[in-house]
């Protein structure tokens, strides 16, 4: 029982990471109807930036917020410079751009920071909080930060004029232009936000998986499974999907062995696509032909 509880709690901690990356995927999917395959590598690259800042003597939290800001700017620039020119190109061209971005960021990180695995600091104490034996402080802290980020994103989209304009631009670009919304910039802003959310996820997961250029590849797969499970067009669903996948992965992994953990994600992806392609909360798309 104790073991199971422990597995569930640490599953929630990694689930929070998946939830963040899944949310970033969904945000870009909603605006462009494309899955950004480079989302994980963007997060990884941002984590390296955080690492460099910490190495340079910047205090942890200052480095944290600075990295989030840099990731945001990086996301905006990537959209404006690389994605915008292929806006009206066929889907395959855009996907190729995403994959190129993935490869470029990955190699760039390896080139600049080498492929040596690096430890990454956690801002939370190493002793368990409140004397519990189930969950480490870092796990608890990263759940807390993930939830805070998700709450912030929710408030931003729900209650601010800019958030409303971004939702409008994603949903109906033509009408959005007709009320004066600069749709192109809303897309860039979406990329910036997604990159910023990814950066938080990267920084939170790095102390457990360690820092290296391929650290996000598995996570992106889980996040993709989470987004599909929740419904690729539903931000709330993606978040819930993230937590479900995290727990499922951990519990199933402890029963059938950790080597088969990644299989859980793949089985989930195939299972969702076969049984319920729209996911738990996604809209079923009906098209007249």
């Amino acid at each position, binding site marked *: 029982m104790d073991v199971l509880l422990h597995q569930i709690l640490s599953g929630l901690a990694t689930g929070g990471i998946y939830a963040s990356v899944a949310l970033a995927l969904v945000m870009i999917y909603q605006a462009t109807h494309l899955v950004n395959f480079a989302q994980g590598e963007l997060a990884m690259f941002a984590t390296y930036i955080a690492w460099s800042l910490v190495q340079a003597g910047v205090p942890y939290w200052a480095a944290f917020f600075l990295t989030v800001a840099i990731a945001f700017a990086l996301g905006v620039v990537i959209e404006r410079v690389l994605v915008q020119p292929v806006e009206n190109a066929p889907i395959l061209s855009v996907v190729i751009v995403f994959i190129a971005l993935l490869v470029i960021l990955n190699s760039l990180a390896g080139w600049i920071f080498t492929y040596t695995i690096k430890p990454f600091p956690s801002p939370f104490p190493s002793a368990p909080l409140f004397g519990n034996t189930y969950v480490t402080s870092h796990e608890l802290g990263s759940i807390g930060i993930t939830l805070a980020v998700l709450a912030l994103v929710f408030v931003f989209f729900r209650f601010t004029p800019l958030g*409303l304009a971004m939702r409008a631009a994603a949903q109906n670009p033509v009408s*959005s232009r007709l*009320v*004066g919304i600069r749709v192109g910039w809303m897309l860039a802003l979406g990329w910036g936000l997604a990159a910023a959310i990814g950066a938080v996820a990267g920084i939170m997961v790095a102390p457990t998986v360690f820092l290296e250029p391929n650290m996000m590849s598995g996570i992106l797969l889980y996040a993709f499974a989470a987004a599909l499970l929740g419904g690729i067009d539903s931000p709330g669903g993606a978040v819930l999907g993230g937590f479900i996948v995290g727990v499922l992965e951990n519990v199933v992994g402890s029963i059938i062995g950790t080597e088969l953990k990644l299989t859980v994600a793949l089985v989930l992806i195939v299972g969702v696509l076969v049984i319920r392609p729209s996911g738990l909360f996604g809209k079923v798309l009906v098209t007249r032909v």
Partner: protein
Amino acid sequence: MARLLDVRALHAQYGPTKVLHGMDFGVEEGGITTILGANGAGKTTTLRAVCGMVKTQGEIAFAGTRIDGRATESIVRLGVAHVPDGRGTFVSLSVEENLRLGAHTRSDKAQIALDFERMYGYFPRLKERCRQQAGTLSGGEQQMLAVSRALMLRPRLLLLDEPSFGLAPRIVQELFEIFRVINQTDRVSMLLVEQNAAMALRLADHAYLLETGRVLMSGSAEELGRDESIRRSYLGY
């Protein structure tokens, strides 16, 4: 009176298909101009051309500045609101959010709040349904929403694309009555495209008759409405 909108030798095309072949027309400051014509004559395209939604050649001047070739959102920000073909509702947002988006370019909070009340005054049904998802509204209600959303911009020029389309005659009457009020009290100039020629000619002061992308005839709305042969051949009433 100066022309608020002045269009000269307007050509427009969708890809290789030319739709407008050199149109000249205008809207007087404070006036209502209507463009009439059969299906496929290029009425909707004309409105789209004015706010930069299609590729055009020729001159389009709004309040003395050239706007042809500018991005749609920049033209809108000058004070041109468009009630588009198909209403352009943000279907998964609430009625209130739809209206809030209409005021996206404005920052005068107190005035916006007053305008909300004004729109709910014109269309009480929108107030009843303000929390409802806009996609669940009836066709007539969505048309009211589209008009209100455009007015929330506080436009100088309102482009109306077949506002009567698919609506019950009583609602059309109501809607046109409100257009008149808006035109007279707020001095909003209008460019109205309509199938319902009788209604349009009664509201407008100036009219253009369009045939396959060319202006066939123009004049005061009264003149065009009186001309028996035009009425029978082109306006169908």
